[in-house]
C-alpha cells in the first residue's frame, strides 16, 4: 500500500489527467462548432454543400485518429511548419486539439443529423410556410429541437472523445497514457496498480458525463 501511495508522490498523476481534461474540453467545443456547421451543410438544400458535408464525414470518420494526430505533428508542424503557439508543448497540445476536433466533428455531425431525424417534417414545413428561409428556420426551429434529441448521442461522442484524448500521446503531448508508460517503465513491480490508477481515472471522468447526458436528454426532451 505504501508503494502504491508513493506512486502519487513521485509522479504527477493529477497533472497528467488535467492535460486530458484540457484536450477534451477544447476539442469538444471546436468539434461541436465544426460538427454543427457540417450538419447544416448536410441538411441544406444546396447540393454542393451536401456533397462536401458527406465527403468530410466519410473521410475523417474512416481515418484512424492516430494517423490524424501523428499527421498534426509530423506533417503540419514538421513538414509544413504550422505553428499554433511559440511554446513547444503548447504547440503540440494545440495541434492535438486540432486533430481531435477535426476527427470528432464527423461524429458530432452524424449525432446532430440523428437529432434532426427526430424533428417531424411538419416543423420545417411550418417554418417555411411563415416565410423563414433555410438558415433562420434551421437556427430557430430545427436545430433547437434536433440538439435536444441529440443529447444522448452527443454524450456518447463526448465520452469517446475523452478516452480518445489519450491518442494525443501520438502527437507528442505529455498526458496520462504517456505518464502511464513512464511509470510502468520505472516501476514495473507495480504494473497492475498503475493500470488500475489510469483505468479508474477515466472512469471517474467519464461516469459523470454519462449521468449528466442521460439526465439532460430526459429534461430537455421536446414534448409532442
Amino acid at each position, binding site marked *: 500500500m505504501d508503494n502504491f501511495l508513493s506512486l502519487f508522490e513521485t509522479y504527477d498523476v493529477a497533472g497528467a489527467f488535467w492535460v486530458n481534461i484540457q484536450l477534451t474540453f477544447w476539442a469538444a467545443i471546436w468539434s461541436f462548432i465544426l460538427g454543427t456547421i457540417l450538419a447544416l451543410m448536410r441538411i441544406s438544400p444546396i447540393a454542393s454543400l451536401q456533397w462536401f458535408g458527406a465527403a468530410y464525414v466519410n473521410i475523417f470518420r474512416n481515418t484512424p485518429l492516430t494517423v490524424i494526430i501523428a499527421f498534426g505533428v509530423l506533417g503540419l508542424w514538421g513538414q509544413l511548419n504550422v505553428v499554433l503557439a511559440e511554446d513547444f508543448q503548447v504547440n503540440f497540445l494545440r495541434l492535438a486539439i486540432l486533430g481531435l476536433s477535426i476527427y470528432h466533428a464527423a461524429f458530432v455531425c452524424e449525432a446532430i443529423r440523428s437529432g434532426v431525424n427526430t424533428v417531424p417534417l411538419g416543423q420545417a414545413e*411550418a417554418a417555411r410556410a411563415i416565410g423563414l428561409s433555410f438558415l433562420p428556420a434551421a437556427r430557430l426551429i430545427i436545430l433547437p429541437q434536433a440538439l435536444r434529441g441529440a443529447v444522448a448521442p452527443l454524450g456518447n461522442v463526448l465520452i469517446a472523445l475523452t478516452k480518445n484524448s489519450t491518442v494525443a500521446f501520438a502527437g507528442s503531448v505529455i498526458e496520462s497514457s504517456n505518464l502511464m508508460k513512464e511509470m510502468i517503465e520505472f516501476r514495473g513491480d507495480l504494473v497492475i496498480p498503475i493500470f488500475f490508477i489510469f483505468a479508474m481515472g477515466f472512469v471517474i471522468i467519464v461516469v459523470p458525463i454519462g449521468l449528466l447526458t442521460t439526465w439532460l436528454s430526459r429534461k430537455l426532451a421536446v414534448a409532442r
Partner: protein
Amino acid sequence: MLLKNVNKHYGELHVLQNINLEVARGEVVVVIGPSGSGKSTLCRAINRLETIDDGEIRIDGVKLPAEGKALAKLRADVGMVFQSFNLFAHKSILENVTLGPIKVKGMKSAEAKELAMSLLKRVGVDNQAQKLPAQLSGGQQQRVAIARALAMQPKVMLFDEPTSALDPEMINEVLDAMVTLAKEGMTMIVVTHEMGFARKAADRVIFMDGGQIVEEATPEEFFTNPQSNRAKDFLGKILAH
C-alpha cells in the same frame, strides 16, 4: 390568385392534371374530393411546399418564385394551416405566434406580442399563451395555428384538411374560427371533408378526382344538383348517413 395548366407527377402517377383555377380576392373556395384526388397536393403547391412540373401559379399577378428570398417573402404572404397543426413544439403558444412577425417582418417584440394576444383572443386561446403546444388539445392547437398564420397578415389563407386530425367534439371550434375568418373577407382555399363548412362559408366548391378538377359550382348547386357522375357518386357515399 391564378393557376394555369399546372401539372405534377409522382413518378408514374399524374397527381395534378392541367389544373386551371382562379380565386378572386375575398373569395372562399372549398376543395373536396376523395383521398388521393390531389387536393392536398394542390393546396401545398400554392406555397411551393410541393414543386410543380409545369404550368404557372401567380399570386396578385406575381409568378411564384422557385426558391430563395423571393419565395420566402411570398410564403410570408400566404398563410398555411396544416392537418397536423405543426406548432413549433419547443416554443410557447405566444412565441409560436410572434416568431413570424419578429423574425420575418422585423416587428418589435412588444408590438408582435400585442398583435399575437389579440389574435389568440380572437380564436379563443389567449388564456393558454404561456403553455407549450403539447399541453393543449388538438382543437386549441389548430386555432393557435390559425392565429400564427394570421399574424403574418397574409393575402390568402390555405387550409389543408384542418379538421381531419381532430376529435369530433373539437371540429366545430376550429370551423367556427374559419367561418368567422371567411365572413371577415379573407381569401381562403380550404381542403376539407366538412360539407357543413362548405355549405355555410364557401363561395365556390371545387370537386377533384384523379388529379383533375371535375366540377366547379356554388355550394348550393353542387350539393343539390351535381353534374358529373363522379361527384354524384362521391356525395351519395358521404351524405347517405
